[in-house]
């Protein structure tokens, strides 16, 4: 097995060796339920789709994903295991990617375990399952984007609480970037191209389209490039900061 695979497996198992993974999954499922049924009015809408379920995901991820990401590198540096890991015959890119993928798969598992709601909506009505599948995929990629930001923030500090706060702040920025409230707040003299560029970086711009069933390859590409860029930034920060 490649070093990437070995690191990925170790990280994923370590989530399940501690209560962390279970707590994350349980809290994720409970809050998802509350959001969907109480706040989202799943039944009251009388429509066979999962829009109320997915539309809360950005806000749910805003706090849940940074909680996983915060320890990614901060703990390695705090305990000194980073020195052990990076003096083994592995590339930094393999370590960054392996750790990221393990955390991403954990969010994927949590997301998959919401399947009863998919069954429910199929039982109650006749939804477009293609749309739901696309929304699941979009949601998972968005979680990955949050995680990639978290990976970079976690590399910036030895203190995982600071990493958490920084990640939440930056993720919040990217969530609201595409929201109409913020876009309308731009003064009229700002060129439209700037406003559009700003909006194009927002998570909601891309996720809303996917959640409504418009699975445009460009939206997935956005998240993929976004993840890649932040992971690259993680590697650069680790390289710069590992000495202290």
């Amino acid at each position: 097995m490649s070093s990437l695979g070995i690191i990925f497996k170790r990280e994923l198992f370590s989530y399940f060796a501690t209560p962390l993974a279970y707590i994350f999954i349980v809290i994720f499922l409970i809050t998802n339920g509350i959001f969907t049924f109480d706040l989202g009015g799943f039944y009251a809408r009388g429509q066979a789709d999962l829009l109320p379920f997915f539309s809360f995901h950005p806000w749910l991820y805003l706090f849940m994903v940074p909680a996983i990401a915060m320890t990614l590198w901060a703990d390695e540096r705090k305990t000194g295991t980073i020195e052990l890991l990076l003096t083994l015959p592995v590339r930094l890119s393999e370590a960054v990617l392996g750790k990221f993928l393990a955390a991403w798969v954990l969010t994927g598992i949590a997301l998959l375990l919401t399947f009863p709601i998919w069954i429910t909506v199929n039982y109650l009505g006749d939804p477009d399952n293609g749309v739901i599948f696309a929304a699941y995929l979009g949601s998972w990629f968005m979680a990955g984007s949050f995680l990639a930001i978290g990976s970079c923030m976690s590399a910036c500090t030895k203190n995982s609480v600071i990493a958490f706060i920084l990640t939440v702040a930056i993720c919040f920025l990217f969530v609201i970037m595409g929201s109409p409230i913020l876009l309308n707040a731009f003064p009229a003299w700002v060129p439209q191209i700037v406003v559009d560029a700003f909006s194009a970086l927002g998570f909601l711009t891309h996720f809303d389209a996917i959640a409504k069933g418009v699975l445009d390859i460009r939206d997935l590409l956005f998240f993929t490039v976004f993840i890649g860029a932040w992971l690259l930034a993680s590697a650069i920060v680790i390289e710069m900061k590992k000495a202290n």
Partner: protein
Amino acid sequence: MIEIKNLSKKFDQFTAVDDLSFNVAEGEVLGFLGPNGAGKSTTMKVITGFLAPTSGSVTVDGHNIAQSPIDAKRLIGYLPEGAPSYADMTTSEFLNFIGKVRGFSGQELQQRVAHVIKEVELESVAQQTIETLSKGFKRRVGLAQAIIHDPKVLILDEPTDGLDPNQKHHVRELIKNLARDKIVIISTHILEEVTAVCTRAIIISSGRIVADGTPAELESKSRYHQAVRVSLSEQYDLQADLSGVPGVAGVEAEADQQLSFTILADGSEPIFARVSELAQSKHWPIEEFHVQRGQLEDVFRHVTAKEAMRDE
């Protein structure tokens, strides 16, 4: 063979390692000595490829650590300072993980893990999570992961720190056994360790080499080298008998023991025979009489203090 050429490492304005050059050959156990903050750990971090040097190069068996890091790292086993390990894994899981990253699988992996567990006596804690282990066991887990691939080069940063005397002895025996066809570099500030395991010692201070030689050679630089230590049963004026004797530099009273004196040699010739003759002919009231080998601690203090003064 490890070749270190003009190695420097700077952190902003601070120079941790300053133009260090030395080679280490197979079979050598190099003790890396120096006061705290002398640059020992930084040097080791650069040799193992964790930190990139500011200038200079490190070559391990022909592989430059900066240009072909993966090939060089394969040859090295490293115990970082404080023996870090993944605390939430069990000893056996952790060693399996390291073994896999080192490229072993299947039966060979199992054999290697079993072998190192036996070698550093971890049988009793193999299934325990590392965070529950004592400091001594954690250090041994760190040592086990460093030797799992039977590396050509073993770099150990303070391997016996925090161990009790029995464990220290055990680890030193282990290092001696491993050392035969390997290159071993140990950093330590415990000087007895150098005499116990090392075939060569380098003392560094402020990132520079201030002494390099076998432990015996370094000891011979001590002002106590060849000195004769005598304990008397009653007051006697040694100074009067000894003044003018060739080879004798002077007499020093021991600070903490009454009637104990050290007769210092000036290094030109051994003085034992002469002093012993004198003692018999003058009937010194002697209780104890022996030659000193020279104290490494004395050399250490002497060379590192000189360097510190130069910096000021």
